[in-house]
């Protein structure tokens, strides 16, 4: 039997293969030879064969039949065998394999071997891929080796211990004694791995964390020595002494200093020193600075140090090295909530990064830019973001558009500006806009009553230019359907009114119906728009004709609509005006961030549906109800939905279960700390623009106590919303007289069916102890039938660590609040 081909010969041979098929053939041939060699239990060449098998495994070929051979190699006395055996084990014998456990005994023996390199192999293998059972069995051996004076073994044992702890956290305790003097080591390998071990233990156990806090001075000293010591060739990297160790120490300091005043103070000086003295010309220095910044931001550092950290990040932003700019943007994104003002100072640099050529940087810059938008800089920022939207890659457009919509909604300085911004997005990135933006935009437009003429005119003009971008087309169709009368009457105030006739408008809408560019959803929109114009235009015959044609459309959706509209003309013509009248203003309780929107193909799942409390249209007769159901309910719902959507999801759903027959509004999630509830665009009724909510108080209504239990008092104060006397504006004030804060405080309310309720965002969700402050929240109640106001409230909060929940009825409303 000739000796099996050598490893490197095989590699050379396989590399000469010119095709995949040729390679496969060679491999199969060799595998066959190896297999028979294994069968013959050949000890001499086992090592060579397994090595070859590992090579073929790397090329992607199966090698499982070599698993047992690896075990035999590990058990061999020869070092060469063990080396390859352990390598094979790490590649082929992970814990998912049945025979994995068979290694345990060999590893145990090798951990006690007389040769440190054999011990090293065992430690390495165990530390890389030992299963939980194996770790349990061998933890004792590892712990022994952790106490050895042999630094070669000690460093490996430390990382092995880290792996054991990761796999079997309960075993952490047993390594505690061995950590006693780990940091007094001189050997950097041991020091580094010890810091890693300590870090792991502190992360996993608050007790360990408190126990190891006393090491802070020692860690500070080690770090200081590294910085101050002169050139040490063994650990030097571009003039910096052991940057790996420095970074790990900084990380451990971060964990130890977090939330602890004394520790944070003890490390203040060294952090300042590292931050100011580290050489920044090379990546290695910046790596240390980066870690330092992360530590400063996480611990309880003094404000001077924090400012220093943010400024370092600011300087990173100007660095030529892309990696450093990227890292800076990522870190700034993390700190923008807590140190908002400091980050704002670097806004112009951040905005410049939008123009960076690198894709990763652009994305980070975009996210950060959105986080920095506020009421003061909205105009300037939006200019930059719109420019970015124009020129960015398609991958970014959807996110950017959503972000712009959100920012515009929050901070629009005027309605006109808002509409213009939306138009700009729709016309430049209209096809990338998320599907659910359409209902959101429609709702926005409805609520800006005085801008209707302007909006419909602009949208009409946009349609004349381009009908390929579906979201734009859908919004435009809807608007023309609603406000077509304003369009033809030329009433626009904001800009030069255009002259357009009813026929021209209908031409455009019919054009959408027939165009190949229109999706079925869009066609639905335009058909409904045409139908609505039957009550606004005088060209009834033309509309009737269009509607009847589509009664035989192949598209089932379109057909259904057309048939129903036809029925409206024929049998229910007396109801048509009422059904197709102008949409009333829609309520919306929560603003939607881009991350919460759900992308669905064509179907839209609008947030408006979440509240399910669109104002009830006056119902003349029950037949009208049936018809409405057929039409899919309210027209604001994207018409493609033929079933009335049932809505689980929001908090409103759960409350529904508890409170039975009452119609209700759930408590919205409090907006992030940076936004102030009062300054959000107020819910507009009757077309009031940007008026503060609590302007005119018709009559002074006495406040009342709605709830008083367990130290929590909730008071209601009242105002009337002018000029709509049907709306009562209630402000709740929640105070807490107990000695502990009430956190995660959520107030929810439900009212009887004839009422409508809107809850705005609360001022915060912590009710401080000892009446030190209060949580306020605004409720608007619409009471068109002037019925006696009743309310059921639900309170949830956490008090002294336990969750508390309570329901209560509020019936003692003063008569003036609802009369």
């Amino acid at each position, binding site marked *: 039997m000739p000796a099996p081909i050598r490893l490197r010969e095989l590699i050379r041979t396989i590399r000469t293969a010119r095709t995949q098929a040729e390679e496969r053939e060679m491999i199969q041939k060799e595998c066959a030879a190896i297999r028979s060699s294994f069968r013959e239990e050949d000890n001499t060449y086992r090592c060579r064969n397994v090595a070859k098998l590992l090579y073929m495994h790397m090329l992607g070929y199966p090698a499982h039949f070599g698993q047992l051979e690896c075990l035999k190699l590990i058990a061999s006395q020869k070092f060469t065998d063990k080396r390859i055996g352990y390598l094979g084990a790490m590649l082929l014998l992970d814990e998912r394999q049945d025979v994995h456990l068979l290694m345990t005994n060999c590893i145990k023996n090798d951990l006690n071997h007389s040769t440190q390199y054999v011990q090293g192999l065992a430690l390495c293998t165990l530390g890389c891929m030992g299963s939980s059972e194996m770790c349990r069995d061998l933890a004792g051996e590892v712990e022994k080796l952790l106490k050895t004076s042999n630094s070669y073994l000690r460093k490996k044992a430390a*990382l092995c211990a880290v792996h054991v702890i990761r796999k079997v956290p309960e075993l952490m305790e047993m390594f505690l004694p061995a950590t006693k003097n780990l940091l007094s080591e001189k050997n*950097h390998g041991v020091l580094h791995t010890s810091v890693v071990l300590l870090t792991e233990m502190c992360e996993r156990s608050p007790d360990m964390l408190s126990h190891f806090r006393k090491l802070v001075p020692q860690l500070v000293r080690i770090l200081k020595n590294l910085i101050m010591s002169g050139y040490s060739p063994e650990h030097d*990297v571009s003039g910096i002494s052991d940057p790996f160790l420095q970074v790990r120490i900084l990380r451990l300091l971060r964990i130890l200093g977090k939330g602890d005043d004394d520790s944070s103070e003890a490390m203040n000086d060294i952090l300042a020193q590292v931050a100011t003295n580290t050489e920044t010309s090379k990546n290695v220095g910046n790596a240390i600075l980066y870690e330092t910044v992360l530590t400063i931001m996480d611990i309880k550092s003094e404000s001077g140090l924090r400012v220093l950290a943010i400024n370092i990040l600011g300087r990173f932003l100007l660095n030529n090295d892309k990696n450093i700019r990227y890292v800076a943007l990522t870190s700034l994104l993390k700190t923008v909530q807590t140190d908002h003002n400091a980050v704002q100072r670097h806004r112009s640099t951040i905005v410049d990064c939008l123009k960076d050529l690198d894709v990763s940087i652009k994305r980070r810059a975009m996210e950060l830019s959105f986080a920095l938008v506020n009421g003061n800089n909205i105009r300037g920022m939006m200019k930059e973001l719109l420019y970015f939207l124009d020129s960015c890659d398609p991958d970014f457009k959807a996110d950017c558009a959503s972000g712009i919509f959100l920012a515009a909604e929050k901070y629009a300085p005027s309605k006109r500006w808002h509409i213009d911004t939306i138009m700009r997005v729709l016309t430049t990135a209209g096809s990338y806009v998320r599907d659910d933006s359409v209902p959101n935009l429609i709702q926005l437009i409805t609520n800006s009553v005085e801008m209707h003429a302007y909006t419909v005119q602009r949208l009409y003009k946009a349609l004349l230019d381009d009908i390929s971008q579906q979201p734009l087309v859908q919004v435009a169709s809807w608007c023309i359907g609603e406000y077509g009368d304003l369009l033809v009457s030329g009433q626009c105030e904001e800009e030069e009114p255009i002259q357009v006739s009813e026929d021209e408008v209908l031409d455009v809408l019919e054009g959408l119906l027939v165009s190949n560019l229109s999706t079925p959803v869009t066609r639905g929109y335009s058909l409904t728009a045409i139908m609505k114009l039957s009550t606004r235009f005088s060209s009834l015959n033309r509309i009737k004709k269009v509607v009847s044609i589509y009664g035989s459309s192949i598209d089932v959706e379109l057909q259904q609509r057309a048939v129903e509209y036809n029925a409206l003309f024929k049998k229910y013509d007396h109801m048509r005006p009422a059904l197709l009248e102008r949409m009333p203003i829609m309520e919306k309780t929560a603003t939607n961030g881009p991350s919460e929107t759900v992308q669905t193909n064509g179907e839209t799942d609008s947030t408006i549906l979440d509240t399910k409390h669109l104002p009830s249209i006056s119902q003349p007769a029950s037949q009208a109800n049936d018809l409405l159901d057929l039409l899919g309910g309210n027209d604001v719902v994207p018409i493609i939905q033929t079933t009335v959507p049932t809505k689980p999801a929001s908090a409103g759903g759960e409350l529904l279960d508890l409170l039975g027959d009452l119609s209700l509004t759930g408590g919205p999630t409090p907006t992030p700390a940076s936004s102030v509830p009062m300054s959000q665009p107020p819910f507009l009724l009757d077309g009031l623009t940007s008026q503060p909510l609590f302007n005119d108080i018709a009559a002074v209504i006495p406040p009342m106590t709605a709830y008083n239990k367990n130290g929590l008092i909730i008071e209601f104060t009242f105002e009337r919303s002018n000029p709509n006397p049907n709306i009562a504006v209630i402000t709740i004030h929640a105070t807490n007289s107990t000695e502990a804060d009430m956190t995660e405080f959520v107030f929810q309310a439900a009212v009887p069916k004839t009422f409508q309720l809107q809850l705005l965002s609360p001022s915060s969700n912590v009710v401080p102890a000892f009446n030190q402050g209060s949580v306020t929240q605004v409720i608007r109640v619409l009471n068109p039938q002037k019925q006696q106001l009743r309310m059921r409230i639900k309170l949830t909060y956490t008090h002294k660590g336990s969750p508390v929940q309570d329901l209560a009825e509020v019936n003692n409303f003063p008569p003036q609040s609802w009369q």
Partner: protein
Amino acid sequence: MRGGAGGIQLFSMRFLLLFSRQGKLRLQKWFTALSDRDKKKIIRDVMQMVLVRPPKSCNFLQWRDLKIVYRRYASLYFCCGLEQGDNELITLELLHRYVELLDQYFGNVCELDIIFNFEKAYFILDEFIIGGEVQETSKASVAKSMEEADSLQETMEEYLNKPTY
């Protein structure tokens, strides 16, 4: 940025891959247990993403829940997948250190050295990193360990045998 109890590791390397510009794998080190299928998929996806990056790009990218840090040295890409909490800049230094160790061992290391001596590349890696963490920060120490371990090899001729490429 802390790891929770429950095995979540926030500061850890998940894998280290070496591959050529043509997409051939030269070394794979995995620090978590995954099925062969999953590994192959990750390799495919990561390679695809990294190989299309223009030359002067940022060396970091976000992929699923991981940060990918990569750097090209001649014809080889050195690439690792990190958890969210990791410091990307020091990881670049880590990759560089590994290349230096290879270079120190092989003398002017090139891709062919890694191809024909892949097992040695693994041995060197195992003296530098265990379980995704650095175990030794001194180049000299690693070199010495390799030298001494090599001297224990019983079949030196086989081990050192280098056929002409």
